């Protein structure tokens, strides 16, 4: 796969806009429709929000790294943090008919991507891999 972008920003919510702004044209450029690209960007934004909330527990002095890879058949994204590793068995969306604030981010990720994988085997932090095949 070809590496198309690496972006590293502080773990502060104001950089979510920066991540979205940089990612959207790269996704469009790799052949997804505007609607698909908007959903991909949304799901990545949710993953980054979760890194800020859960991995860094609101500490803005960490970093979030995003890598984008592309080949003819798919888009692969890697999100890296050096925060607290999650208990992967506990990451779960709420039931959608349980209407309450929150609990949607992981649902969006599962809905948008064909592969969602948390790798906590590294020395520090987590690598979240998100993959989507061209439809």
């Amino acid at each position, binding site marked *: 796969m070809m590496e198309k972008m690496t972006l590293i920003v502080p773990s502060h*919510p*104001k950089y*979510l*806009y920066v991540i*979205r702004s940089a990612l959207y044209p790269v996704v469009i450029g790799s052949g997804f429709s*505007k*609607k698909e690209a*908007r*959903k991909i960007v*949304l799901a990545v*934004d*949710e993953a980054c*929000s979760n890194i*800020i*909330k859960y991995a860094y527990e609101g500490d803005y002095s960490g970093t979030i790294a995003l890598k984008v890879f592309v080949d003819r058949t798919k888009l692969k994204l890697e999100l890296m943090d050096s925060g607290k590793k999650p208990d992967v068995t506990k990451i779960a969306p709420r039931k*959608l008919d349980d*209407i*309450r*604030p*929150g609990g*949607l*981010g992981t*649902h*969006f990720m599962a*809905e*948008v991507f064909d592969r969602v994988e948390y790798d906590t085997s590294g020395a520090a932090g987590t690598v979240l891999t998100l993959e989507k095949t061209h439809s």
Partner: protein
Amino acid sequence: MKVEIVTEKIELGFLLRLKGDVDMNTSSDVRNALAKVFKQESSGMKALLIDLSQVRYMDSSGIATLVEVMQNCVKKGARLRLFELSPPVRDVFELARLASVFEIYATFNDAVMGL
């Protein structure tokens, strides 16, 4: 990258226009603006109308805010009606399967009908 909220008192209650990006960074601004509205309505409002045509982006924290607003409206006996959802708002409603949970209208005129 900022969100702007314009609040207008109308006969039926309040009309809110959201503009910009509603995400983890800005949804608290929306929540605060709405808290003010609920404080203001002393005499009991009939409806809260929210214009979403100028929203360039909304994530799950924006959805969470709207769900809270809906719960507040139910408590106060007011109707919450959303209108003119921009394409990114429609995307997130679709993904959250929320189209049937909220009262959604194409235009302001449609939204005030029958209130």
